[in-house]
């Protein structure tokens, strides 16, 4: 379905999403029109779904980031749906992932400082329904974040 040119364009765009079709074409070695047509096709195919701004929460004063690993009570048939619906309402939750494995759900929670985190943890996280177990990993440093695919 995809050829070398598609992959080249996606590789360049992943490396720098702010590139225009003309710049992208130049880097991939094709005319701008061809580059923009290909990108249009990748969008139509649902492969290229969009671009989202990345917010650096630290720059807004959120110094604390915690990965909360949740195990749900499987005796409760609606545990996943009820838990996820409640987690979506928490404003300090920036990511929600579900897993197959020892952990069922992971929440990424941000807070201004440890006192603020403690408040969120007690007043919001511990109120979430159907939790059987909860573990926290506190982020010390993000060493590498490049969610591009090895195309």
């Amino acid at each position, binding site marked *: *379905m*995809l050829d070398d040119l598609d992959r080249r364009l*996606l590789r360049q*765009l*992943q490396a720098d*999403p*702010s590139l225009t079709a003309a710049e992208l074409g130049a880097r991939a070695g094709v005319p701008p029109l061809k580059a923009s047509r290909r990108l249009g096709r990748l969008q139509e*195919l*649902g*492969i*290229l*779904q*969009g*671009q*989202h*701004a*990345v*917010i*650096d*929460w*630290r*720059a*807004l*004063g*959120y110094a604390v980031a915690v*990965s909360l690993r949740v195990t749900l009570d499987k005796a409760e048939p609606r545990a996943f749906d009820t838990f996820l619906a409640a987690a*979506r309402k928490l*404003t*300090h*939750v*920036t*990511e*929600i*992932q*579900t*897993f*197959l*494995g*020892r*952990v069922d759900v*992971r929440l990424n929670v*941000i807070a201004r400082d440890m006192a603020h985190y403690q408040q969120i943890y007690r007043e919001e996280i511990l109120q979430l329904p159907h939790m059987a177990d909860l*573990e*926290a*990993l*506190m*982020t*010390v*440093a*993000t*060493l*590498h*974040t*490049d*969610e*591009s*695919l*090895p*195309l």
Partner: protein
Amino acid sequence: MTLDDLDRAILAALQRDATQTAAALGGRIGLSQPATWRRIKRLREAGVLAGQRLALDAEKLGFGVTVFLGVKLATKGRVSLEDFERAVVAIPEVQLVEHVLGLYDYRLRVVARDLADFERVLRRRVMTLPGVGDVEANVLLSEERRPGPI
């Protein structure tokens, strides 16, 4: 940096779609193109807008499996941390490396074509990392990013 309501509206809009022009965005929140552009520039300079993320359908591109790994180091000390970190960031299938405190020392996000490919990455690349000890794998089923406190 402190934000006002218009800054928040701009951040929320760009989180949804970072390709929109300042004119289009401004039009929706009742701000002129130059005023919107100035605010975006200020947010960039303050480091709040830290770049753009491309949303790709990984599965359609042949990456059917994403796994989160918790890694514990077997030996600790400054040298082993550095060796591990240098080697782990060089693995192309590893998308995210976080140094964490808690049950594990590192949290990794790994993409692979399928489970067999993941097993290859795990055995040949992750389990052979310098100092690596206990590894826990959780296969990603679904993921959503939330707007956060803006």
